[in-house]
């Protein structure tokens, strides 16, 4: 049974001069329950639009998106491209507000500790660096125990060691409590390190060019050589994706 069934025939935006710009055309994706998918494609190709459609923020399109029937209303954790924290609420309040009423708040402090944010948990977001704000946004998405986790280039502007740490943390959380993840990135190495399956998307109108399973076992994902080797073989065997990177 698939967790998410996406079938978007047509999505257009009204551009300048009343021209219809087609953003997505004939996009069919099927995500298995608890699958980790990375969407790879050039920037500006409409990946954020796709995530917005899945999150239910945009219903102005032709086609349909079906979320798994197991949950009547699946909880969604969404890490936007910019952190989107409420500037007038503290770090901790920002995370707590995303939780449904009566939800346990104890795990939040553990997460804040893990991502080294304990010192700033009572500060307002304007006092944080962009990297810190991003980590807060990531915790907010995890804190709701999402059935579906949408991540829109969440690790951009994190320094490489922090990015690696958050990546490992993301995977360990995902293994502890499996959920379906849609992760947008344009970094192929990052995508290979994280995903069960890579989906390559083309630029306007966006559509799926190829879908490739990543056969590297989870235990070897930290091995940079294995990832680099897989990347090279990908580029050799799939010439169609070269232009998308």
């Amino acid at each position, binding site marked *: 049974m698939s967790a998410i069934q996406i079938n978007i025939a047509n999505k257009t935006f009204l551009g300048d001069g009343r021209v219809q710009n087609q953003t997505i055309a004939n996009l069919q994706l099927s995500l298995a329950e608890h699958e980790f998918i990375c969407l790879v494609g050039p920037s500006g190709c409409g990946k954020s639009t796709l995530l*917005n459609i899945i*999150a*239910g*923020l945009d219903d102005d399109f032709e086609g349909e998106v079906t979320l798994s029937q197991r949950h009547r*209303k699946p*909880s*969604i954790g*969404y890490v*936007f491209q*910019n952190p*989107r924290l*409420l*500037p*007038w*609420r503290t770090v901790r309040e920002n995370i707590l*507000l*995303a939780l*449904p009423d009566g939800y346990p708040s104890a795990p939040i402090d553990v997460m804040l500790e893990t991502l080294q944010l304990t010192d700033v948990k009572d500060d*307002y977001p*304007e*006092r944080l660096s962009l990297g810190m704000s991003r980590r807060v946004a990531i915790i*907010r998405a995890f804190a*709701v125990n999402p059935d579906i986790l949408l991540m829109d280039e969440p690790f951009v502007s994190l320094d490489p060691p922090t990015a690696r740490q958050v990546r490992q943390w993301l995977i360990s959380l995902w293994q502890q409590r499996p959920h379906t993840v849609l992760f947008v990135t344009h970094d192929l190495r990052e995508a290979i390190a994280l995903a069960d399956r890579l989906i390559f998307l083309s630029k306007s109108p966006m559509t799926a060019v190829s879908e490739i399973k990543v056969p590297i076992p989870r235990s070897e994902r930290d091995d940079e050589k294995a990832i680099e080797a897989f990347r090279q073989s990908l580029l050799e065997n799939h010439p169609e994706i070269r232009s998308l990177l």
Partner: protein
Amino acid sequence: MTVRSLYDSPRLASLVSSVLFLLVWQLLASYLDSTTLPAPLAVARVIWLETVSGQLPYHLGVTLLRLAFSFSIAMLLGCAIGIAMGRNEKLNHFFDNWLVIFLNIPALVTIILCYVWFGLVEYAAILAVVVNKLPNVIVTIREGTRTLDRDLLEMAKSYHFSKRKTFLHVIWPQLYPFVMGATRTGLALIWKIILVVELLGRSDGVGYQLHLFFQLFDVAGILAYSIAFVCVIQIIEFSILKPLDKKALRWRR
């Protein structure tokens, strides 16, 4: 005391400027030596006598009560209508003309019409003030609503924020500066209108007293009541509005 230390300490500067104001007033009064411009001390004496006799507190109280009522009604209605018009483009289009008309009716006209239509009664007075203030609140709040951050509203929607949560934590903090702006201009505008309303059709309140003093050419009385009222408005500003601002805007860098 140097000019420099005056410049550095705002409190000292405002004290010096107040004293200077009184001094100029006193000099002018002594020079003119006329009943039409009484000296500061003479006005202070009237304030004292009127306070002791209970007249000043009574009329001030009546006017403040009218202020509180009409202000609350205008703000509540104005916020609701302003948010609705800011969020709904069709509604805004439809009622925009009404707003322009009401914004441009002179205060005196609404006051006269309210008294003519409803008689010289309390609710006609309150209504006249509300009708005068309401369009300003609506316009201010509408502008505020239009600048609401769409990114944050989307965030709230994706995390299934309830309507109440969205309003309290996402919308209200963004509207707050606009509401405070409407409050400040509102207080200043409303109390001036209330005086006219009282002068034209009420038999109590500061406006009514001013009317009496005018007929007697009692300038000291007029100045005494005006100064008393200005002081009350300043007290509201410093004891309520300023602390509220400080608390609400503490997240700003």
